[in-house]
């Protein structure tokens, strides 16, 4: 009833988790059965180890939070040798978020992940707002976005999802450009560039001054963008941005998302993904919907 497909990926339900909010899944294993998820996207992975940005990296804002983690991760080598063996047995779609600061780095990471049997897809992060040349430079320009996607496409054979930034004027143009370059799916939105100031201390709340806004505050922006992109491209759209309930997830599905990702809400309720799956089931029963696909893109 809740099964959906994103390119070659078969998801038992449309509920996934968003990169950077779910670690490597293991962090949540005490709270939920990871195999109940449609899939999960692991932390942004780069060519080599990255320390990320200095503390402070987060600030709570009305109905949301700003973060400036800056892609701290152990690098693709460590992922393949240490993390992957611990999670590969899980019967769900494990997707690796691939980040970089150059086309060469994106390609190199994608190629290494391609060799991992139990990783059926990558999510190409061309939209991180928190590092210089952190991808967002690629994600805000249709030609640059197409260039990095077509280069990765040449070396990566499995499902290629491209994660888009909302920090653009016409997101549908970027989506069309990456579709034309060979993307199998797009996920959106990454965080919205924001800023907060601690007025008592008279300094920015984040070490990087600006950061990425997530949480319920960004949801209407995300729903609007998913709707615009779903109308503009033929490839499946994965929607995310402030989803914290089944009703939120349904908004994205109706706006045209084939699947959704839950991010910041995991911090508030580590079981929220399971609650959402149960809520979707309940909704389908109440509305006599035999196949969740029947409501996708109805708006």
């Amino acid at each position, binding site marked *: 009833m809740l099964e959906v497909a994103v390119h070659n990926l078969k998801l038992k339900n449309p509920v996934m988790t968003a990169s950077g909010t779910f670690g490597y899944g293991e962090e949540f294993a005490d709270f939920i059965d990871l195999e109940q998820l449609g899939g999960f996207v692991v932390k942004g992975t780069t060519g080599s180890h990255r320390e*990320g940005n200095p503390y402070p990296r987060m600030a709570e804002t009305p109905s949301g939070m700003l973060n400036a983690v800056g892609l701290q991760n152990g690098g693709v080598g460590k992922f393949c040798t240490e993390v992957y063996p611990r999670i590969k047995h899980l019967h769900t779609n494990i997707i690796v978020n691939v980040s970089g600061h150059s086309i060469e780095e994106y390609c190199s990471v994608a190629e290494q992940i391609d060799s991992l049997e139990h990783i059926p897809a990558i999510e190409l992060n061309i939209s991180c707002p928190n590092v210089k040349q952190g991808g967002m430079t690629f994600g805000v320009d249709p030609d640059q976005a197409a260039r990095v996607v077509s280069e990765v496409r040449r070396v990566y054979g499995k499902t290629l999802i491209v994660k888009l930034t909302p920090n653009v004027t016409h997101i549908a143009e970027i989506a069309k450009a990456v579709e034309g370059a060979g993307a199998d799916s797009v996920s959106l939105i990454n965080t919205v560039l924001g800023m907060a100031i601690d007025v008592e201390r008279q300094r920015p709340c984040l070490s990087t001054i600006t950061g990425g806004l997530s949480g319920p505050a960004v949801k209407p922006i995300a729903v609007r963008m998913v709707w615009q992109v779903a109308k503009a491209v033929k490839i499946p759209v994965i929607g995310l941005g402030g989803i914290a309930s089944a009703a939120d997830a349904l908004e994205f599905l109706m706006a045209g998302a084939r699947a959704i990702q839950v991010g910041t809400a995991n911090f508030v309720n580590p079981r929220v993904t399971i609650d959402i799956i149960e809520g979707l089931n309940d909704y389908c029963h109440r509305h006599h919907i035999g196949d969740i696909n029947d409501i996708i893109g109805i708006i």
Partner: protein
Amino acid sequence: MEQKKEMTDFAVVENRRVAETYVELVLRPVGKLAKVVPGQFAEVRVEGAEGVMLRRPISIHDIDTEANTLSLLVQIVGRGTRRLSQLASGERLNLVYPLGKGFSRPKSTASHILLVGGGAGIAPLYYLAKTLSREEVHITTLLGGRSEALIPARDKFMPLGEVCLTTDDGSAGVQGLVVDHPCFAEAYDMIYTCGPTPMMKAVARSAAARDMSCEVSLENLMACGLGACLCCVVDTDTGHQRVCKEGPVFDISGMTKWYELC
């Protein structure tokens, strides 16, 4: 084997004011309390406070296994903690716990240890003191605050060993910082400290200079509390470490970069 974390509803058994801006919340879970190591913390969900979305990381102040209760010492600093301070008996509170790595035990039971606490940092030291006092460890407690009214829970430490106080205004104990108190100059097998960052750094620097073992319990801004979001990191000698996962308690031997930076 890593300790299992859980998300559990607790009922407020008691909410009592313990100092000018502190309350102690005594909470009882629906089932049986999980085993908690001193120094570990809970992520507390705050409902009914405007603009509060994220859980609040609060260290575990006391465990009473017989009464099946857990206590939190809450300093009222913002909207979230204000709401917590207003909870009535019987109200429900949702906790994710036990989180993080707690204090290590002293190497031998014949040890003489020093606990140095300031402000809300006093909270985890009480459960540590209570646990260690059962093992006949000799405990000296040194607590500091701006004034007498801002040192919570000090009476609780009295039955467990000597208690020394410092205040900025001289309203209790020695006037000055904790590191100015004569008891701080003595030799200890281990120093445990939790409190404002400048205080902990001063304690750590002095302990390192005197070649004494020391653990600090950090209190960084946190989102998930589970090691997933990487927001709460501290810059250690081996790079960024998560306060919620590798900490909140750190041995100062790997923290020279941190404590040398004032």
